């Protein structure tokens, strides 16, 4: 086994080691801690890009890493295919942006920020790589435990209250996860995902109900994480309360639930699943549509920008879930593009919100609500005085970033949000047409409209309406991550052809799960050092 095949486990080991190392140093050594954390995230980005290129170049696309050198159905395996490589790169890109942003200010406002951050990355990477259901639970708990710490980061009454709800809901969801996993184990006698895919078609008819009950309970646990209506009521509050860099990395947290549902629904209940094929896909389709509607109304109703972003996370999750429910290759590939584009945009927007709102006093949002409720006639008395005031440089940059975010969230040309929506709509209309498809298409367009209206309103109130414009004090290292994420969206647009080709290949391999199963089950034991010597 050459060293490159060991690279597969690096995305888990590296943040774990970095997180443990960070615990050794005193909280006052900010520079050292920041350097270790930054070095870890940069290395992670390089490794994940290498893995992505490796997966994209090989003809045998799935590489398998047997932990402890036990063959597949008995030991735990890590599996790298196009989808997991894509998620790994997305995670490390968001991590880099959030970390650089936090270095300006946030990482000093409480203990152990960097350790929690690294452990969150470890949990995320592990969840994307693992090929075993129970191991997935363990990595989920790692990332959730780190996220409990991070959502409370910076303290304050609002965060503690939101964190309390967040933790209680996720602990209950973890119990559902365990019930689902153990039901599936009780019926099939295995926890390896590839082995499950082989055994599910052979499940006896009288046991099928238990299996489907297990899959449903498991699915509910992931849908709570993904924020499907009506399970996602907690999400906007928790994401709004979190500190800006934390919210930026949380943008991928709801996508973990979506990732697992995409992976498991196509692997376990895909084309080869026999009597249970396509199980739950109509629930995903209609649940996803309800989520889009709920999220779009929430976006329109939001006064504060933080809540707007939180509800947009729901819109994005709903779009993805409904697209997974359509269960067609081209829709899945459009959904994957949408996932990357919307995650980057939401992350950039969470960072930007904190910068823009820094200038306003905390009571401003409350005031905005009362002003709209009681009519804002007090504004009319004040005549505009300084008509020809030059826009300060900071505000111009912030405004430009805001326009970029608005275009991405609403899905308007020329940025990648438009390509994502276009890919989804063409794939849907080109496929088998039915009433649900048209409703979904209408919901997609309406959600874009509601995002546009809400963003325009928020932009006018923030950038144009203030009479005496206080310019927020923004450091270069804070605006650079926002720009970095938005430029990446621009790259996604310009390189749209090659990105879509990758997404098409990913969707194609997801919809033919037998390749994945064969790759995992045919993984041979690696000869140990002693066996190699004796030969």
């Amino acid at each position, binding site marked *: 086994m050459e060293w490159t095949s060991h690279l597969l486990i690096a995305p888990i080991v590296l943040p774990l080691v970095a997180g443990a190392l960070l615990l050794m140093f005193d909280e006052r050594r900010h520079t050292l801690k920041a350097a270790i954390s930054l070095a870890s995230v940069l290395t992670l980005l390089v490794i994940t890009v290498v893995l992505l290129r490796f997966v994209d170049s090989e003809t045998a696309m799935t590489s398998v890493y047997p932990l402890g050198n036990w063959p597949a159905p008995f030991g735990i395996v890590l599996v790298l295919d196009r989808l997991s490589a894509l998620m790994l790169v997305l995670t490390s890109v968001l991590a880099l942006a959030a970390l650089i942003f936090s270095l300006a200010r946030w990482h000093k406002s409480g203990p152990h920020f960097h350790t929690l951050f690294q452990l969150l990355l470890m949990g995320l990477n592990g969840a994307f790589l693992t090929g075993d259901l*129970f191991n997935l*639970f*363990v990595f989920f*708990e790692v990332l*959730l*435990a780190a996220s*409990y*710490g991070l959502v*409370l980061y910076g*303290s*304050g*009454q609002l965060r*503690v*209250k939101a*964190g*309390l*709800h967040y*933790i*209680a809901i996720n*602990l*209950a969801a*973890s*119990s559902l996860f*365990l*019930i689902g*996993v*153990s*039901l599936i*184990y*009780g019926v099939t006698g295995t*926890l390896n995902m590839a082995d499950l895919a082989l055994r599910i078609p052979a499940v006896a008819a009288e046991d099928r109900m238990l299996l489907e009950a297990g899959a449903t309970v498991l699915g509910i646990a992931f849908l709570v994480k993904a924020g499907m209506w009506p399970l996602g009521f907690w999400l906007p509050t928790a994401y709004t309360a979190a500190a800006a860099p934390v919210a930026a990395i949380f943008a991928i947290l709801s996508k973990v639930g979506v990732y697992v549902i995409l992976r498991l629904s196509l692997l376990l209940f895909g084309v080869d699943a026999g009597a249970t094929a396509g199980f739950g896909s109509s629930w995903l389709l209609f649940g996803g549509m309800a989520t889009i509607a709920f999220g779009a109304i929430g976006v329109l109703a939001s006064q504060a920008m933080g809540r707007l972003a939180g509800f947009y996370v729901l819109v994005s999750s709903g779009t993805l879930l409904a697209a997974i429910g359509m269960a067609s290759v081209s829709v899945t590939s459009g959904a994957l593009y949408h996932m990357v584009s919307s995650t980057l945009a939401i992350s950039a927007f969470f960072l930007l919100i904190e910068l823009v709102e820094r200038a306003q006093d905390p009571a401003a949002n409350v005031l905005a609500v009362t002003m709209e409720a009681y009519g804002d006639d007090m504004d009319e008395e004040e005549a505009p005085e300084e008509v020809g005031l030059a826009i300060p440089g900071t505000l111009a940059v912030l405004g430009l970033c805001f326009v970029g975010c608005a275009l991405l969230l609403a899905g308007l040309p020329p940025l990648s949000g438009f390509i994502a929506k276009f890919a989804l709509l063409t794939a849907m209309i080109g496929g088998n047409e039915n009433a649900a498809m048209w409703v979904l298409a209408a919901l997609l367009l309406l959600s874009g409209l509601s995002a546009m209206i809400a963003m325009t309103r928020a932009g006018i109130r923030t950038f144009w309406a203030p009479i005496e414009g206080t310019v927020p004090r923004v450091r270069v290292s804070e605006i650079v991550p926002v720009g970095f994420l938005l430029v990446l969206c621009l790259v996604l647009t310009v390189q749209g052809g090659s990105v879509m080709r990758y997404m098409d290949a990913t969707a194609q391999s997801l919809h033919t799960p037998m390749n994945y199963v064969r790759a995992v089950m045919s993984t041979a034991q690696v000869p140990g050092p002693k066996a190699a010597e004796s030969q």
Partner: protein
Amino acid sequence: MMELTLALGIGVLVGSGVWLLLRPRTYQVIIGLSLIAYGVNLFIFSMGRLRMNAAAVLSSGTNVNPADYADPVPQALVLTAIVIGFATTALFLVVLLVSRGLTGSDHVDGREPH
């Protein structure tokens, strides 16, 4: 008889846990979550088929009949779930105390209903 006892035990634990989870005081919520965790652990254990007087660890002989042994996988799963549940409950307890300290109320919304 054993199956009935176990099923009733799990049902009572999870049922009381869900009821407590829906109560408005943080202490009730944490006890509810703990009870649900106990019920779930028993449930995982029972999913490996209940056996009496069967060992989980293979003896070091050559002729091993797997049918003579209890399924060790659910036992390993329960052990992991207990450890993780313990840690997360401890963490929730800390948040509960912080919330009590910051808001001066043990209501889950941080303020007393009027």
